[in-house]
């Protein structure tokens, strides 16, 4: 049967077989393990998004790789062979099929990505005027990037500034990310949050953690000498643990709270330009 098939049919059948083998792997093996994990609403959205991307890519990948390997084997001749290949300059129908399928896939991905983005904000920094705002009560947490440490301010708790990040589980968090100097990027990996810290800019990212756990904080934008050491561990804790913790922080940093400027979304402390 195989030997009587045309090359075209063989590639088509092989592509379908490879796709059928790969798709369950993408959906059931890779998909659930895609980053950043389903610890938050936006993290869950990203995992879903990544899985959909994998699924859409699979048939195209299967086709191109199958075709490539098949062609390299089936049409190969020894280097000494001097015969010419078939005189084909194109094939309108294949071109149109290719154009239509790739366009459909691209448009689907763009629409799907936009829908995902607009549903939760996807954990990305949205600038000072977020286009996606979650309803209900929101706990604002300010992330201040500076060379080379992140500090955190809780405006609804007297504007206390802390060296560590803790957030309560099940609460809608709004990270207000800003910087005092160079550009940093606040990346809370397991939360699925990344927002650049720009001086003079309030960059807002929303997230709602679903499980209590620790998470890695890293700077994701090159910010100078200690960029590689600008990491930290944050914690998602229960509401009662959070209440205890924040009260403890308020006691601990009572002295520094008096020095702090009133809470603002951005700061421009001296020296701002050429210091001296």
């Amino acid at each position, binding site marked *: 049967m195989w030997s009587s098939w045309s*090359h075209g049919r063989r590639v088509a059948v092989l592509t379908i077989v490879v796709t059928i083998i790969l798709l369950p792997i993408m959906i059931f093996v890779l998909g659930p393990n895609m*980053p*950043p994990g389903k610890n938050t609403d936006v993290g869950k*959205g990203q995992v879903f*998004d*990544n899985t959909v*991307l994998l699924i859409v890519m699979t048939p195209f990948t299967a086709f*191109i790789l199958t*075709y*490539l390997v098949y*062609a*390299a084997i089936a*049409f*190969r*001749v020894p*280097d000494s*062979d001097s*015969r*010419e*290949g078939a*005189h084909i*300059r*194109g094939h309108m129908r*294949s*071109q149109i099929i290719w*154009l239509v399928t*790739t366009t459909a896939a*691209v448009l689907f*991905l*763009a629409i799907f*990505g*936009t829908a*995902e*983005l*607009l549903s939760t904000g*996807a*954990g*990305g*920094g949205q*600038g000072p*005027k*977020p*286009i996606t705002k979650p309803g209900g009560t929101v706990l604002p947490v300010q992330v201040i990037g500076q060379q080379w440490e992140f500090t955190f301010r809780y405006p609804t708790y007297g504007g206390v500034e802390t060296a560590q990040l803790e957030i309560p589980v099940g609460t809608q968090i709004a990270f207000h990310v800003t910087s005092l100097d160079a550009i940093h*990027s606040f*990346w809370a990996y397991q939360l699925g949050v*990344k*927002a*650049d810290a*720009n001086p003079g*800019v309030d960059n807002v990212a929303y997230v709602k953690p679903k499980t209590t756990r620790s998470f890695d904080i*890293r*700077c*994701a934008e*090159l*910010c*100078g*000498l200690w960029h*590689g050491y600008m990491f930290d561990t944050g914690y998602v804790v229960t509401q009662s643990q959070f209440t205890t913790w924040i009260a403890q922080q308020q006691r601990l940093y009572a002295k520094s709270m008096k020095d702090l400027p009133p809470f603002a979304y951005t700061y*421009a402390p001296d020296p701002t*330009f050429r210091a001296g």
Partner: protein
Amino acid sequence: MAVRKLIGFNLLTGVVLGVIGYIVGWQLGHIPTGESIEYFGDTGQNDIAMFCAYMLGVIGFLVGLGFANYPIQRMLGKPPSLREKETGGWTRYFGLCTDHKVVGIQYLVGIGVFIFIGGLNAMLIRYELLTPNQHLANGNNYLTLVGLHGTMMMGMMTSGILGPVANYFVPIMIGARRMAFPRIEALTFWLLMAAGVILMTALAFGGFPTGWTGYEPLADQANMGMDAYICFFALVGLSMCLLGLNMLATVITMRAPGMAWGRLPMFVWGVVSTAILMLLAAPVLFSALLMETLDRTAQTGFFNVQAGGSPYLWENLFWIFGHPEVYILALPGMGILLEILPVFSRKPVWGYRLAVTGMLGISLLSWLVWQHHIFVSGINADLRPFYMLSTELISLPTGFIFICALGTLWAGRIRLTVPMLFCLAWIFNFLIGGLSGVFLSDVPSDVTTHGSFFSMAHFHYTIMGGLIFTFFAAIYYWVPKMTGYEINEFWGKVHFWSMFIAFNSTFGPLLVIGFLGQPRRVVTYPGFLQGANEWVSVSAFVLGASMIVFLVNFVYSQVIARVPAAANPWGSKSIEFQLPSPVPVHNFDRIPTFGPDPYPYGEGAEAAPSGPVIAPARHTK
């Protein structure tokens, strides 16, 4: 005569005048004083002197090479020679030469040297990343290494194919004897060499911490090494702009009779679409660098928030240049791919017009996508869906290239020669690069992958896997034509397989490492990633070793044990292979005329009298 040659206008006088210019500039830069530049005393970083030194150094270098001779002689009313030193033996390779073939070979060697340095830096980066902590004893050098690697590669490889291959073969392919502006052609090369040397001097002035993107305000804080970055990219930008202009002018105005637009070889189309981007993108970079220069010297505030500027301005300008830039790197590779596939499949290009549409489509779309580099920066949140769409739309013209490449293989008689292997590897590598790019273009997915090793691995798949692989395809395919000596095929295959396997073994795991949360450009990473990083580092060292295989093979067959190459070792029907190897000076005795079919391959095609009519030039020296 020998003395006359030594003190004439050549590389030696160029270097001497360059050093003199540098010293004079350095001294001049220390003259201005005043309150506004008082801070130089505190910092010990006299950026004004640094810029003056670099600028006068470059000017001295160019004058020493003889670039001022022509305009000065014309001003004095003397009739100058129009074609300097085109037949001067081996010394013409060490000076200003307006023969496009000499410039091509100069580019090949010159760029090769700097790419080698860039690769060496990559090895050192991977050495550092063997452990989750910093262990290069000198702590400042890691970021400088990252910057030197990225900047050198990005700057040099913009001309990596247009410099050596297009300068050499585009005039021949369109049936011309020279480029439209031969003196500018030579200038682009020497500017690039000056740029490369300047970038390396960053090490002597404290390095620069910004990577190749040069983000503000970090760039403004940096030591004088940053000035080397700025001068490097400015010279590269100038060189790119002129190179693009020259290529476009040549292809537009100098095509031989019969060489209609619809008959251009695919490689020339790749060059045209790249040249458009070069001509238009480089000025954006240049002006942004000028602002950065002013911020660092005259203390303007283009990028300083509190002085009324914005770091977003740099991010936007840089990526308006930077995104076309990555297609400047990718497009020539596509041209080479579609040029070489027909030869070794013995078939015409499949879907000629679709492929051209693809390349020009990429050229156009690459202007509309730049903000996908700053999706999480907080600027223009409402425009993200647009940039997501425009970025994903680039898959369409890229898909054209894929389908044309695959179609060309169909029912061919494929010979797996070394150039063909490198081209087939392009299809695999660029596929991975393109697919990983879809994750980065999708905002929700980009939130995790942005700034991570995933995005770094992605562009290494597209640029190293796309451009460098086709660069080597071009070397194995065309260098015998350029030099007249064969390259050993067996060691070429060793090079290919070791490079292909090591490349994928390096950057494949990096995609995963990025997904697992390792940011780019850091010296530290979570301990559980050490095993994976060690694997990547060892693979990278093997990748480096495969380059040594290439280098030894190349030098051995080109310099030590030379085997004269046949005029047409590949049975190519392209015009350059109808000329002797190496191609004689002035290429053609009479301008050739071209038939209707640029790719007369395939059964039955030979019968048609469609190839070019050629009379090769008789000079061989």
